[in-house]
């Protein structure tokens, strides 16, 4: 495994972890969606770097799919955010807890 791939994978894990941090630490729905996007950039980087390492187009192919997923999630997530904001304080996801226990 070449050096840059290891570095890229480490950074990808970092991106993923940062996104996870955002997901756990932030209470605003919007921030959480942003954190999700950041989480997804981790695998994106990893795929592209691995593709470059293997000289294989499949890495970039998977990147495209990740991108599609990110786009879909943003679309659904933002629509949901707008809808939620009518019912609840979407700035604080902790208040959205009718379903529990």
């Amino acid at each position, binding site marked *: *495994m*070449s*050096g*840059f791939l*290891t*570095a*890229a*994978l*480490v*950074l990808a*894990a*970092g*991106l*993923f972890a*940062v*996104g996870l*941090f*955002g997901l*756990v*630490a*932030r209470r*605003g729905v*919007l*921030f959480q969606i*942003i954190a999700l*996007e*950041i989480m997804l*950039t981790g695998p*994106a*980087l990893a795929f*592209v*770097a691995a*593709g*470059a390492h*293997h*000289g*294989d*187009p499949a890495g*970039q*192919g998977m*990147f*495209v*799919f990740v*991108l*599609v*997923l*990110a*786009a*879909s*999630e*943003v*679309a*659904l997530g*933002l*629509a*949901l955010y*707008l*809808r939620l904001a009518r019912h609840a304080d979407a*700035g*604080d996801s902790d208040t959205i807890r009718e379903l529990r226990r």
Partner: protein
Amino acid sequence: MSAAGIFATWAAALALVAMALAVTRPNVVHALIWVVAGLLSLAAGFFALGAGFAGAVQILIYAGAIIAVFVFVVMTIDSGPEAIARERARLAAGWKGPLVLMLLVLAPALLGLLAGPGGQGDGAPLPVPARTLGMLLFGPWALAVEAASAMLIAALLGARHLARREGGR
């Protein structure tokens, strides 16, 4: 490590820093700007890795389209100073736990990666022309691409339903 590799690593590291800043900004707009910065850095890294198509798509769609949608949404809500202060207070109240958690997830990943058999191969990224990518996507992967479009349709249907006016038809 080749020069391209070093540059790509540098760019990705920048992206990580930008993302880290993004998740810690109390102001949504600032956060979004840092996200864009991070995405652009990543795009630069992609270019350095010889994945030109990925870099381009990243800039156009990710940093361009998706973030634009974000910004539109952000503009519909007000984020006045008190909202920012509230956000800052919330973040200040609970960032240590999540940080520890993040390190907990990261630690085994880093340990595993760094323990791995590094330094094999010539170390240089191999560029992949967009043409071979196209051959792949519209050749053997055609079904997957179709399915990805179905994914978009599903998201679209959901978003459309959610966006329906209250008490709409």
